[in-house]
């Protein structure tokens, strides 16, 4: 028996030796596939993207579990061979862990390129994957853009989600794929910012039903959502979805500026696009940029994004409902907001039923918007409940309001602006990588607000080139208080960090500046005009002495005259600890020349030195 076993071992060894020699002799792998075909497949752009190799040879995943080959042995060819091997392995106890179930996109890609039947690779049924991807034939995926939120640094630029349009599920219950940094609980804000920028966080795709995100964005953070169906051919959508399935809970290194949700969402979608929409060399990738690029992309001759569906936030709903009331109804809403004991059906008895619906629906939105849910002492919680109860007492009727917005993020200009111009002192060349200011806030932005990062200007003055100004960060949050109802907050704030000239008559006196302002804003003329006042404090000096500390005040008016014209006037007074003071008036006007170009004129007057400066620049958005 033992002798028989030895003979069998020798036979197997010889068989393996012959097989190896054959592989060498005929340049085929273990499945008998021509080596040239494998080599060709392993360098296919789509195969590389499936391995998250977007540029160069290194995969973007940092999670060792995603790759089947060890890190030091990784090559796209080795990964291809290992993938094929995993596809023919016996099924494990948990069938969902089989290679075909873990890598359905790789399976789909290779099955389209190779004859699996001939290779003896039998299809495995993957229950979890099948359930997840039981989607509608058309528009299997939707891309959701959440407008920016100035209350959280990670959300300044908006956010992207990918919804999976699963069969037999209501819209809010469909799976939603999110990409985000894995931030530890209770992380401090400073650590959060620093680690987000320097790449210290892992990040991953995760999935949850859409309603979690919907409620968080729409109700808690008051962010409008824009949902674009991705109109790819079914086989293309299948591949994207399969790839996303592979990537769920797989770690990537997160960088706030260019390895963020926008980057990885775009990479996943461009798997099936003819042209890439993102470059690895870009220092900044923003969610709106991805929407805009996909909006102008096509696949198989058809637009990638379909008609948008708008999900207004609670704040937007309140403002639009309030705006649609007639004067009598507005008066009644204000009357009740000031005297909530009048929140009864008796006080509305003289009104038509439709008016009752409109008033009560507006009050529901109003109380929900202003109430502090965590504060049991806040009377608005009871008023909110009373408003909802009144609605129960009326006959069934859907809310009649038709919400709309022209502020679709796919439209409008690029997020970066370069400009050239001149002022009294010389020629100015500037770059603002992102994002918008009060003059050009438009599609997908917050009216009258400002969000700038990394802007710098150089000046060429008498043949000398100097750094003229730097804006590392500038945020201005303007609350609109459109209804003027109690609690519809108008508190506003701003923060700027960077450097500017000591006085307006100098071109080589750049000094660091930090300024913080806290104040109130009022909006008029359908929110197109905002007037703000701030108490300010900060530091401006070229040395670290306390003389650079200042306190002051700022008045600002921002007027969006039309889609083409806008203007901002600012009066800023600073009183320094050194007992000196400065007062600067600045008026700036913008004219949109085209969607991608504008012209800006500005005039400044420094009352301390009694000098004025005029400047003009032409900008290009990209």
């Amino acid at each position, binding site marked *: 028996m033992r002798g028989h076993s030895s003979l069998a071992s020798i036979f197997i060894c010889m068989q393996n030796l012959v097989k190896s020699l054959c592989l060498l002799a005929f340049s085929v792998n273990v499945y008998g596939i021509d080596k040239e075909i494998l080599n060709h497949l392993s360098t296919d752009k789509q195969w590389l993207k499936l391995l998250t190799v977007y540029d160069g040879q290194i995969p973007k995943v940092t999670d060792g579990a995603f790759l089947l080959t060890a890190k030091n042995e990784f090559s796209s060819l080795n990964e291809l061979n290992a993938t094929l091997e995993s596809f023919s392995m016996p099924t494990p106890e948990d069938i969902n862990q089989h290679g075909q179930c873990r890598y359905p996109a790789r399976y789909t890609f290779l099955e389209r390129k190779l004859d699996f039947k001939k290779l003896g690779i039998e299809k495995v049924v993957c229950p979890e994957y099948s359930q997840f991807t039981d989607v509608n034939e058309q528009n299997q995926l939707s891309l959701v853009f959440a407008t920016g939120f100035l209350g959280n640094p990670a959300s300044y630029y908006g956010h992207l989600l990918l919804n999976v349009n699963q069969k*037999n*599920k*209501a*819209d*809010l*219950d469909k799976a939603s794929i999110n990409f985000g940094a894995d931030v530890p*609980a209770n992380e401090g804000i400073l650590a959060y910012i620093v680690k987000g920028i320097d790449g210290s966080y892992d990040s991953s795709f995760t999935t*949850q*039903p859409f*309603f*979690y*995100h919907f*409620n*968080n964005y729409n*109700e*808690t953070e008051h962010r409008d959502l824009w949902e674009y169906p991705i109109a790819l051919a079914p086989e293309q959508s299948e591949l994207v979805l399969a790839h996303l399935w592979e990537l769920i809970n797989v770690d990537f290194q997160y960088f706030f500026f260019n390895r963020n949700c926008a980057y990885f969402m775009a990479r996943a979608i461009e798997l099936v696009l003819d042209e890439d929409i993102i470059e690895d060399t870009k220092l900044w990738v923003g969610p709106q940029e991805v929407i805009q690029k996909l909006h102008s992309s096509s696949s198989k001759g058809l637009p990638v994004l379909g008609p948008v569906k708008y999900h207004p936030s609670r704040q937007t709903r309140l403002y639009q409902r309030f705006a649609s009331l007639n004067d009598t109804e507005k008066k009644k809403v204000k009357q009740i907001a000031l005297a909530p004991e009048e929140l009864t059906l008796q006080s509305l008895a003289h009104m038509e039923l439709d008016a009752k619906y409109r008033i009560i*629906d507006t009050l*529901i939105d109003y109380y*929900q918007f202003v109430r502090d849910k*965590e504060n*049991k*002492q806040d009377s608005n*919680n*009871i008023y909110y*409940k009373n408003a*909802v*109860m009144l*609605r*129960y*007492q009326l006959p*069934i*009727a*859907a*809310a009649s309001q038709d919400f709309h917005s022209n502020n679709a993020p796919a439209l409008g200009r690029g997020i970066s602006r370069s400009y050239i111009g001149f002022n009294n002192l010389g020629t100015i060349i500037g770059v603002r990588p992102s994002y918008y200011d009060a003059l050009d806030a438009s599609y997908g932005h917050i009216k009258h607000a400002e969000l700038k990062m990394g802007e710098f200007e150089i000046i060429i003055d008498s043949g000398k080139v100097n750094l003229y100004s730097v804006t590392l960060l500038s945020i201005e949050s303007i609350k609109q208080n459109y209804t003027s109802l109690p609690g519809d907050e108008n508190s506003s704030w701003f923060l700027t960090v960077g450097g500017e000239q000591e006085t307006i008559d100098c071109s080589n006196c750049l000094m660091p500046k930090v300024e913080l302002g806290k104040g109130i804003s009022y909006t008029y003329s359908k929110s197109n005009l905002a007037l703000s006042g701030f108490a300010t404090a900060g530091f401006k000096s070229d040395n670290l002495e306390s003389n650079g500390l200042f306190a002051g005040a700022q008045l600002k008016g921002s007027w969006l005259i039309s889609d083409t014209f806008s203007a901002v006037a600012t009066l800023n007074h600073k009183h320094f600890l050194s007992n000196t003071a400065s007062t600067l008036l600045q008026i700036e006007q913008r004219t949109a020349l085209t969607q991608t170009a504008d012209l800006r004129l500005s005039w400044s007057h420094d009352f301390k030195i009694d000098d004025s400066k005029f400047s003009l620049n032409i900008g290009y958005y990209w």
Partner: protein
Amino acid sequence: MKKNLLAALALTFVTSANASGPNPYSDCGIGAAIFPTQSAAAASSNIIWDLGVTAITSATMSPETCNAKNTKVAKFIIESFDSLNEDTARGEGQHLNTLLEIAEVSEEQKGDVVAKLRANVAVSMTEFNAKTTKVEKSQAYYTALMTAI
């Protein structure tokens, strides 16, 4: 007389939510797992709340209480309570439609279920006050729904 009847109904909903009867929030550990402090955790529940993992067994629950569908219904109610309640008051809306889909209410049943649900919730809301927690409100809504189906 009508007022007394309403009060009795309201009491039934609130007590059934807090004590006996199918209650996925206490029996399946949903409320405790999601809102351990009943306050700040609500804001982060979007991140930590994973379908299925919060369900635990209890000696007092009925076999049906913690089944996948009921747990999902209960989770949707607590996560979307305000919007859902507003939709119910109007008798229409995407949150209400989603709930009915999750609860597997057929198109033919919808009108009848919504009418009953609306009446039940209106009654239970009369008992809510400033101290009523989100879990208690959700329990009352859940009971109202189960009674309506």
